[in-house]
């Protein structure tokens, strides 16, 4: 799958989300028709502000929504051509689609290594194959090997994010739904983690659907991006094109069309905007 980037254009998409609507608690409409597709071996970014519906979209795909009393009421989701909306999360993991949740969600009382091993829960192979994969994860995240015997709850935020990604990797996924990996991390660390994600994508052929608020970095790594606003896709396009787009620049990257604005003007502009809306 090393030539995945070339195949991107022609192959049938690995994941397709068609016009889904998600309702929480039978009343709260969160997604109002979201469509997107992720090609095999691609990195696709899902962008938008807080509450735009990024996490909900990912959870709708991985089916974690059910445990939060949300459900997909319209549209459909296809993974490798099969409808998957009614599958349980563990069945989906078995098929190769796993989510790394926002906020890392490591098992705090388990050691780093035990955390990684839980990722292999759905696999039926013997210990040898799993051990090999553990070494593979350590080769991508050498820092985890040093901390393998410490309780995950006591490791740093960056190490926890690495543990969470490594844990997902242990399930031998075809696709990782990566929710907000930059959250709460130092910029340098964010860079490091995105580099590793890119390597995983290129060397292991894992497709990535990435939800990010950090539009700048997400668009540098993603081939394609979707921008969500209050539960709808308002814009989509190639990563490069989105970065050049004037609206994206203004709303998400913080640079205005005519170069940098003075801080005073920005403030004024924002205030007026709030009155009007």
């Amino acid at each position, binding site marked *: 799958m090393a030539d995945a980037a070339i195949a991107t254009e022609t192959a049938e998409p690995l994941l397709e989300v068609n016009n889904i609507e998600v309702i929480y608690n039978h009343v709260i409409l969160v997604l109002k028709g979201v469509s997107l597709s992720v090609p095999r071996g691609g990195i696709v970014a899902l962008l938008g502000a807080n509450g735009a519906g990024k996490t909900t979209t990912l959870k709708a795909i*991985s089916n*974690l929504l059910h*445990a*939060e*009393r949300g459900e997909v009421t319209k549209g459909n989701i296809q993974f490798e051509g099969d409808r998957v909306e009614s599958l*349980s*999360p*563990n069945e*989906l*993991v*078995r098929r190769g689609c*796993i*989510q*790394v*949740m926002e906020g890392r*969600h*490591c*098992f*705090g*009382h*388990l050691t780093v290594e*035990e*955390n990684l*091993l*839980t*990722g292999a*829960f*759905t696999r039926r192979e013997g210990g040898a194959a799993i051990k090999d994969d553990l070494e593979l994860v350590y080769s991508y995240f050498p820092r985890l090997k040093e901390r393998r015997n410490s*309780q995950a*709850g*006591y490791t740093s935020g960056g190490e926890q994010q690495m543990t969470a990604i490594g*844990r*997902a990797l242990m*399930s031998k996924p075809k696709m990782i739904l990566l929710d907000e990996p930059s959250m709460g991390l130092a910029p340098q660390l964010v860079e490091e983690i995105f580099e590793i994600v890119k390597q995983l994508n290129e060397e292991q052929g894992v497709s990535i659907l990435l939800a990010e608020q950090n539009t700048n970095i997400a668009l540098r790594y993603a081939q394609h991006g979707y921008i969500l606003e209050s539960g709808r896709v308002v814009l989509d396009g190639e990563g490069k094109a989105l970065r050049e787009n004037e609206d994206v620049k203004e709303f998400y990257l913080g640079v205005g069309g005519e170069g940098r604005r003075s801080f005073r003007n920005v403030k004024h502009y924002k205030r007026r905007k709030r009155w009007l809306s």
Partner: protein
Amino acid sequence: MNVEFLFFLETVLNGLMAGVMYALVALGFALIFKASGIFNFAQGVMALFAALTLVGLQTGQVPFAHLINAIFGTEVHHFGWELPAIVAIAGTLVVMVAFAYLFEGLVLKHLVNQEPIILFMATIGLAYFLEGFGDLMWGADIKPMDVGIPSGGSFWWEDVTREWAPEGSDYFGMYVDKLDVVAAIVAVVLVSGLVAFSQYTKFGRALRAVADDHQAALSVGISLRTIWVVVWSIAGFVALVAGIMWGAKSGVQFSLSLIALKALPVLILGGFTSIPGAIVGGLIIGVGEKLAELYIGPLVGGAIENWFAYVVALVFLLFRPQGLFGERIIERI
């Protein structure tokens, strides 16, 4: 050794034995609490139900005999067979696993992601249901249990200890119930098994993962439903062991379900999430009770045994709320 000291020793020994019995019940609580954050109010009743079923199977009672007779006007009570203890135990185990499976499918499944208090309420409901159901199924009379566990005082130990007393004193040796010794051995084996299971197996690891973070466990493909069935089955198994020991000791009667209340201070002492904690907590409570009865009892007119454990638990809550072995609450700032 002087007689005074031998008395002290005997009290400690009996306290330890009593503690093991408490620990057996506390163990079931700790297991379920650790894996799902549910305080299972029904653990004591599960032990009762397991004991009832075991005796029923062993002596060949017809389940629901009263109900059947009332509806059809028949007179069936016994199948007329006697099962060997080991077969009856296996049969009871099957019943407890089936029970875990049903409880998950009918109740827990629908309460995923609810507040712990709601799950707690569900277990209270379960406790009353199971008590009534056990009554309906096997009848409410007190039944003796005989699964071949030796009981009664050990003469050998009595003889040995009599030698320890100084020449000429009227000491007759220590009393230790053989049943209690068996219970202690069983408890050690049980705990070692459980600890090995939770530390070194895939399911054990998954179980601890679920205990830490339901959501994350779901996200890595651990099926909560499977884990819950496994946990409740194990809790059922532990309840069966506790039921056998208590049943053999004091007969299978409905007051057996009240031993659950004794497990509470044990848990507070040992930590709700710790399997070894349940054992050590049980031992401390057992010994503490007996010693308090012996030394403080005469000063306040006795009957300390009944409330001493709760006072100890209260003190612990003040100074070490997570218990002796409870998981440290990890907080990152």
